[in-house]
């Protein structure tokens, strides 16, 4: 989960408190840093923000941040606390935006246990919703894009518009023996498009390939291992292409176009 507070000391304390409740915490000191963190990890389970992020009396920029997160990333559970904003004011200002908030006059420490449980429950529910949505999306993808009938560049181009939704994809393509994994391209470069990878368990090993790019494949003993190898391969090809002004044709050209569009966003993020 992400904790946002403009005061370093508060951030450290909140982080410690929540980690003591077995929550994994990353922190941000500003609105822009928070948005960047979520962009880099759209699967973020929850956001807890201070309401007063501007160090000015009466400021409620935490509410604005929460609205922005909600508008951009949908159903991330949002939580808030404030040492300056009264309960009534916060209720009016936020209007149901936060699943739970701790206003002025209530000690954070005393609410911590309940808050941590609520965050955990909300995260689990969100994951469950994502899983159900993923099943539906994947079933749709299997019908529309059978693996045998891939036109590599075209398929990838058509799949990319799904990328934001595809960030939720976790479930397996059991019927086809595959499951679709998403490599968040923040591994390569922040805000790049995600990469969809088919992964299939074979007799003795795991195999993975980038959807629509048959030359990008890897084998390994575990899912993590195989995806790590695939990422390394893509990163290396990306480096080759980045440092190369040579001519490309056929599958090599498709690979180059795919990598430039998907990974090397320095050339223009579409």
């Amino acid at each position: 989960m992400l904790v946002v507070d403009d005061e370093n000391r508060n951030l450290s304390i909140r982080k410690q408190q929540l980690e003591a409740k077995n929550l994994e915490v990353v922190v941000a000191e500003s609105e822009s840093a928070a948005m960047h963190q979520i962009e880099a990890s759209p699967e973020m389970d929850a956001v807890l923000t201070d309401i007063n992020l501007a160090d000015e009396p009466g400021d409620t920029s935490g509410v604005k941040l929460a609205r922005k997160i909600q508008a951009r990333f949908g159903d991330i559970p949002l939580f808030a606390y404030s040492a300056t904003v009264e309960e009534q004011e916060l209720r009016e200002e936020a209007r149901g935006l936060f699943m739970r908030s701790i206003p002025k006059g209530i000690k954070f420490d005393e609410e911590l246990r309940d808050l941590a449980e609520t965050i955990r429950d909300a995260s689990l529910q969100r994951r469950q919703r994502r899983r159900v949505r993923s099943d539906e999306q994947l079933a749709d993808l299997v019908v529309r894009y059978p693996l045998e009938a891939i036109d590599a560049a075209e398929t990838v181009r058509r799949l990319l518009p799904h990328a934001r939704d595809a960030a939720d994809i976790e479930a397996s393509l059991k019927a086809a023996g595959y499951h679709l994994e998403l490599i968040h391209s923040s591994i390569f470069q922040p805000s790049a498009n995600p990469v969809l990878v088919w992964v299939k368990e074979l007799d003795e090993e795991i195999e993975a390939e980038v959807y629509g790019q048959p030359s990008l494949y890897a084998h390994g003993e575990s899912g993590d291992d195989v995806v790590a190898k695939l990422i390394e391969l893509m990163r290396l090809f990306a480096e080759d292409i980045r440092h190369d002004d040579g001519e490309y044709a056929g599958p090599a050209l498709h690979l180059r176009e795919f990598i430039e569009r998907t990974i090397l966003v320095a050339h223009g993020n579409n």
Partner: protein
Amino acid sequence: MQLTTREAERIFNKLEVEAIRSTHHVRGFVTYNGVRLFPVHYSNGRKDMPGHVPKRFAKSLNLALDEFAELKRCTMSREKYFGIQAERGVISLEAVEVSGEQRP
């Protein structure tokens, strides 16, 4: 069909693929007259590669499995390989028949 890293290396050499090595992979492009045509790679390791790899390796070279077996057995030369690619329209036949200085 099995494929060892040694055999994959020989194929890279035969096709004059400029191999770049890294921790897990050896990679490169099949290049004809300066134009990169096929991205290819194999994994480092001493053992035979898994049974599915030869099929994928063959596919990445735009060869059927029986053609790939020929390439592996050394009965297919680099010229014959590019002759097959020319027949498939990947490069022009004219460019194969003349010296390697012309672009396909």
